[in-house]
Each structure stands twice: as C-alpha cells, then as structure tokens.
C-alpha cells in the first residue's frame, strides 16, 4: 500500500530527517516516533504528497489517502454538520450519513454549532469524522491523540482497529506515551537531519 525508499526532505538545503525507508501493507500500522522537531510532521506531509521529497523514491503509494494534521481543515464559519456535508459531497466517496459519523465521534450535541465555538478536542473529533467519511485505505495521522480526553483517545484507537481490520493501513506520528494496541504494528524512530 505504501513503500518508500530512502526518502528525504531538505529545508534551506538542510535535511529535515535522516533518509526514511519502510514498507507498509494492508492491515499494518506504522508508528513514527521521535523527539520534537525531528521531522515527524514533515515526513507525514511528504507521504501525503503535500511536500515533494528532495531525494528517494515512492516504490508504491496508494492514491486513497486520508490525512489529519495539525491544521484540521475545518471552517470556523460552518457548523459541524455543514463542514462534514461539504466534505462528503466534495469527496463523493462515502455512503455513510454525516449524522451517523457525528454520533460515532461523540459530537451529536454540538452538530449544529459553528466550528468556531468548539473546543480543540471537539475540533479534532470533527476532523476524525471527516476521515471516516473519506473512505480512504491509507490513513496518515499526525499526533491524533493531542487535545483529546481519554474517551477521545479510545475513540481513535477504536477507529484505527476498525480501519486496520477492514484492510486499511495507517502511518501514525506521535511523541506521546500512548500507543494503540495492534498486533501488526511497526515502530519507526525518526532521527532529525540536524542530529546526524
């Protein structure tokens, strides 16, 4: 589903991280860990095709990718349900109803509220709801547990389990202590380019 060989990304002619190689198949989870500033977010953005690697190759990469990053892509002036309806219509890939997904992520009570009135955790849940609607096979999650309460952390783990059981794959970048329970998980310790 995703296979990369010695990919690297340079910013101002300095490598952000050491060259990265790995192979990820259906049903597998890759946990990218590392210290602050080691380039986890940059790596995820390179994998998502938002940034182009300076060197290295994508041996294989599915086009069906869902991404939740630091910037959640939620419009403040739209309500939760309007945000999700837009994304469902825009992506055109989901048969699920927005109301069902909103209930799943625990935003039922605030579905008609403007996104600007939501807490950081609720906004993260809204972005996770969009991920569910995207119906993509490869998830790229950058710090998905940040801003979430314990219930939210459990929700992410549950979503991940369902996704991986259904034959999806996931690259998850985290610097926290929590790690999702999944038998076929690989760890990748990212090393900053500056430390090399």
């Amino acid at each position: 589903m995703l296979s990369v060989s010695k990919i690297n990304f340079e910013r101002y002619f300095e490598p952000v991280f050491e060259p990265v190689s790995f192979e990820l198949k259906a049903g597998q989870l890759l946990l990218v860990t590392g210290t602050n500033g080691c380039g986890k977010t940059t790596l995820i953005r390179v994998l998502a095709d938002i940034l182009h690697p300076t060197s290295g190759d994508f041996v294989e990469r599915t086009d069906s990718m869902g991404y939740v990053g630091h910037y959640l892509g939620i419009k403040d002036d739209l309500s939760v349900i309007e945000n999700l309806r837009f994304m469902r219509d825009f992506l055109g890939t989901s048969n699920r109803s927005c109301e069902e997904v909103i209930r799943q992520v625990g935003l039922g009570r605030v579905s008609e509220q403007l996104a600007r009135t939501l807490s950081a955790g609720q906004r993260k849940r809204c972005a996770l709801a969009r991920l569910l609607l995207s119906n993509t096979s490869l998830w790229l999650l950058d710090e998905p547990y940040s801003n979430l309460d314990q219930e939210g952390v459990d929700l992410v783990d549950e979503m991940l389990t369902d996704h991986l059981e259904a034959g999806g794959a996931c690259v998850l970048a985290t610097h926290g202590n929590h790690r999702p329970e999944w038998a076929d998980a690989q760890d990748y310790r990212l090393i900053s380019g500056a430390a090399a």
Partner: protein
Amino acid sequence: MTIEQQSGSMGSAFFALLRRDLLLAFRRRTEMLFPIVFLLVVVSLFPLGIGPGPQLLARIAPGVIWIAALLATVISLDGLFRSDYEDGTLEQFVLSGHPLTLISLAKIVAHWLVAGLPLVLLSPLLAIWMNLPIESLGVMVLTLLLGTPILSLIGSIGVGLTISLKRGGQLLSLLVFPLYVPILIIATAAVMAASDGLPYTAFLGLLVAGLITSVTLAPFAAAAALKISLS
C-alpha cells in the same frame, strides 16, 4: 466492513465547493460588503472632489468606475485562497484526488459571484451618478461583465503565488496591477468609443478573447502556484 475506493465525480466536487464558498461569503458578510462599499465611496467622492460639471464627469466616468472596480477586486482577492491555506483545507483538497485546477476554478467562480458580479450590477447606478451618456451605459456594463472575471482569474495566479507570505497582499498588488493594465485600457476605450458614437465592438472582441484565454489558462497557473506555495 471493507474499504471501497469510489471516485467522486468532479462535477459534484466543483458544485459542492462553489456552494460552500458562497455560504461562507454569506456568513462573512462584512468581508463581502467591504469591496462594494469601497467602490461606492470612491465613485461617489469623485463628483464631490472635482465638481459636478456634467461634461467633465461624463468624460472621466469610464476610467473612474473601472479603476474603482479594479481596486475593489484587488481588495477582495487576498481572501480567495487564504483561509483554506491557513486552516489546512487546501491540504485536504490536495489529498482529495480532485485536480487543483478544478478546485481553483470553483473558487475563482465563487469569488467573481461574490466580488465581481455586484460591481457589474451596481455599475448602471454609478454610471448615472457620473453622468455617463445613456447610450454608453450598456457598453459600460458589458465591459465590466467581461472584464471582472478576467480580474478574478488573473488575480488568482497572484494570490496562489503570495499566499504563503505573511504580507502577501502588498506583493499581490505589485504582481497583478501590471497584468490588469491592458484590461483597463481596452475596457475604458470601449466605453469612450461608445460615448463618442464610434465603433466599439473590436474592444469588446478583445475583452472576450482575454476572457477565453484567462478561463483556459489561469486556473492551471493558479493550481501550479498553489502547489508551489504549499511546498
């Protein structure tokens, strides 16, 4: 549960984005109204500043209305992609699999409907205020109808290039104004020719050619500029 990747239709993506941008513009009414108010104020102040002499006003009317419309468009341009860039929506667009060209075109159309079309609709009122001869009023509206979409289309390239800069708005003006000059010259020449009873269709033809060229090329250039800004 199995994962099935279905490809969403580009048409529904286009209209979904257009609908969303129009709804957002309606929710941010102050932002939407500012360029229109700006246009009204600038054109209204001219007769007060230079005197209400009908002949002088009629002579400068095409230039004044067009320059005010051009400035009003530039004021509204910065918002074309900025909020999508800043809140991460643009990244989601890149991942959606839909071409950025289509996304750019939908946003440009929404921008014109919100910022350009009101200028066209207001122009007869402004033309009367500026004492423009009634026979050239239709040509004035027509030049704005053909010209304002070109302003949005060309402007989108500048916005795409400057969106990642903190004070991109200032650079944006420098980038797009030289490209707007031919449109300004052709449009005002058409209205003046109509006022003088001279043939003006050639000028309108040039504007149509400019519009076709911009519609064909600008969304691609804006998409490429956005890609560069994102990386």
